C-alpha cells in the first residue's frame, strides 16, 4: 500500500517535473535583496532620512520638492542625452568591430583578443586610468605635442559630456561587438556564397545580407545599451563626480550624491523610483516596439 502510494507520488512528481522547491533559494535571495529593496525605495521616498537617525514620515514633500528641482530635470535631460548619443556612437562601432572580428583571418583573431581587453578592467580602473590620461597638464595633453589634444578634457563643461560618452563607449563597445561577432558567425556561409556568385560587392553583401540577418542582434544590443545607459554610475563618478558644476550629473549619480553626499535619502529615493520607472518603461517599450520576445522565441526554436 505504502509503496503503491509513493510510486504514484513519484509518478506524479516525474510528470510535473522537479519539485518547485528547487527554485526556492534563488527566489528567496532575489525577493529579499532585489524586490524588497525596490518596495522599500518607494516607502523611503515618503520619509525624511539622513542615513543615520531613523526615517521619519513626511508624506509627499520629497516628491513635490524633487520633481520641481531644476537639478532633477538637468539630470534627467543629461541621462536621455547620454542614452541617445551613446547609442549613436556605440551601435555603428560595435556593429563594424563585431562583423570585422567575425572574420576567420588569423590577424583578426589576434586583434579580437586585444579588443576585448577593456572587458576585464573594472570601472574603477577605467575611471582612474582615463582621469590620469586626460589630465590637462600630463598624459595625452603632453604626449604628442599637439595643441588640440592639450585640453582640460574633464574640466571643460562643453567637452566633458562627450569625453564621458567616449569613455563609456571605450568600456562597453567591446561587449556589444562580442554580441555582433556571435550574431555574424550565425549567418549561413551559403548566403554569402550565393551573393558572391551573383557578383554582389562587399558593401552590397554587408547591406543586403549582414545587416538584415543581424536585426535581432541589433535589437538585443540596443535594448541592453539603452537600459544600461540609464545606470552608468561608477566610471562617471570616478571621472568627474558629476562635475564640473552639474555638467555630468546623470540620474544615478544625482541619486547617489543626493543620498550619500547630501544625506538626503528621502529625495534620493524619489530619484531611485524615477530610475526604476524609466528603466521599466524603456525596457517594456523597446520590447514591444522591436519584438524582443519574438527573438527569444525564435531562439527557442533554434
Amino acid at each position, binding site marked *: 500500500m505504502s509503496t503503491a502510494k509513493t510510486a504514484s507520488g513519484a509518478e506524479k512528481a*516525474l510528470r*510535473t*517535473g*522537479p519539485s*518547485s522547491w*528547487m*527554485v526556492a*533559494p*534563488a*527566489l528567496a535571495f*532575489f525577493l*529579499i*535583496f*532585489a524586490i*524588497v529593496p*525596490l518596495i*522599500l*525605495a518607494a516607502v*523611503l521616498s515618503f520619509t525624511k532620512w539622513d542615513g543615520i537617525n531613523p*526615517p521619519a514620515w513626511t508624506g509627499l514633500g520629497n516628491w513635490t520638492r524633487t520633481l520641481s528641482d531644476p537639478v532633477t530635470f538637468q539630470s534627467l535631460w543629461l541621462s536621455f542625452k547620454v542614452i541617445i548619443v551613446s547609442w549613436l556612437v556605440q551601435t555603428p562601432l560595435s556593429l563594424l568591430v563585431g562583423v570585422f572580428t567575425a*572574420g576567420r*583571418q588569423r*590577424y*583578426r583573431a589576434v*586583434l579580437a583578443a586585444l*579588443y576585448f*581587453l577593456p*572587458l*576585464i578592467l*573594472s570601472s*574603477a*580602473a577605467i575611471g*582612474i*586610468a582615463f582621469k*590620469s*590620461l586626460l589630465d590637462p597638464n*600630463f*598624459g595625452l595633453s603632453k*604626449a604628442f605635442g599637439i595643441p588640440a589634444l592639450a585640453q582640460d578634457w574633464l574640466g571643460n563643461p562643453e567637452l566633458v559630456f562627450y569625453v564621458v560618452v567616449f569613455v563609456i563607449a*571605450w568600456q562597453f563597445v*567591446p*561587449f556589444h561587438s*562580442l*554580441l555582433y*561577432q*556571435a550574431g555574424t558567425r550565425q549567418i549561413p556561409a551559403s548566403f554569402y*556564397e550565393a551573393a558572391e556568385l551573383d557578383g554582389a560587392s562587399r558593401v552590397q553583401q554587408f547591406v543586403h545580407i549582414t545587416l538584415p540577418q543581424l536585426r535581432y*542582434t541589433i535589437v538585443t544590443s540596443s535594448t*541592453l545599451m539603452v537600459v544600461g545607459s*540609464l545606470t552608468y*554610475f*561608477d566610471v562617471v563618478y570616478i571621472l568627474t563626480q558629476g562635475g564640473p558644476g552639474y555638467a555630468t550629473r546623470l540620474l544615478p549619480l544625482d*541619486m*547617489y550624491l543626493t543620498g550619500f553626499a547630501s544625506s538626503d535619502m528621502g529625495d534620493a*529615493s524619489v530619484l*531611485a523610483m524615477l530610475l526604476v520607472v524609466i*528603466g521599466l518603461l524603456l525596457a517594456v517599450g523597446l520590447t514591444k516596439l522591436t519584438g524582443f520576445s519574438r*527573438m527569444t522565441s525564435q*531562439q527557442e526554436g*533554434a
Partner: protein
Amino acid sequence: MATTLQERRRAVSAAERGRAGRGRRVRPNYLAGLGGFVWLAIIIVPIYYIVITSVGQQSDFYTGNPLLPSSNPTLDSYQAVLDNDFFLYLANSLVVTVASVVVTVGISLMAAYAIVRSRARVVRLTFSLFLLGLAIPLQATIIPLYYMIGQAHLYDTLLALILPSIAFAIPITVLILVNFIRDIPGELFESMRVDGASHWRMFLSLIIPLSRPAIATVTLYNALNVWNGFLFPLVLTQSPDKRVLPLALWTFQGQFTINVPAILAAVVLSTLPIFVLYVLGRRQLVAGLTAGFGK
C-alpha cells in the same frame, strides 16, 4: 553518457567547421584592416599608458613624455602598492567573489533545472520575475539596501557585499543556464526516469555534468562582475580592513594623489587575477557574455 557527451562535442565542432567555411572567401579587405588597426590604437593606447606609466619612475612622470617607455624602468611603484595592504584587499576581493559566485551558480543551477523541467505555476512566475529583474536598474536599490544592511547589523562586513551581489547575479545566470539546459535532449531524462532515478539524482548526474560549459561560462561572467563591482563596496563598507580592490583603487587615488605610477600599478595589480582568468578561459567567457543575450 560519455559517448553522448562526445557526440555532442563532435556535433558542435562540426557545426563550427561549417560556419568557418566563410574563412575560405579570401580577398583581402584593406579598408576593414585599416579600420581594425585604428580601433586597436584607440583600445590599446589607454592600456599601454597604464602599463608603461606603472613601471616608470615617479620623478620622471611630470617631466618625461608619458607615452614613451622610461629610460630606467622600475618596479618600485608595485612595491609601494604591495606594501600598502594590497594582499588584504586581494583577500577580501577573493572572499567576496568566491562566496558570491559559488552560491549564485549553485542556486541558479537548481532554479534553471526546475524552470526547464517543471510545469508548476510558481516556477513559471519565478522565471518571469527573473526576466523582469533584467530590466530593473538595480542601482536604484542601493539606498534601501543600505537601510536593510544597517538594520541587519551587517554594515561594513564582507557579507554585506556578498548577499546583494548574489541576488543581482541571479537573473542573468538563470537565463544563461536555462538556455543551455533546454538543449539537453529530453530522451536523456526519459531514460534516467525509466531507471527510476529521482530528480535530485538527475540533477547531480545529468544536469551538472552536461552543463559544465555553461557553468564555466556563468562562473567566469559573475566572477568578473563581482570582482569589478564598485557601488556596493562604496556604499556598504567603510573600514580599510573590509576594503575590496576596486574601492582600494579609489582610495589609493586619494592617498597617492601625486604618485601616478603607484596608482596605475595598483590598477595593473588589481586586474592581474582577472587577466589570468581571461587568458585561461577566454572562450568560455566570450561564450558566456553572448549566451544570455541571444545569438
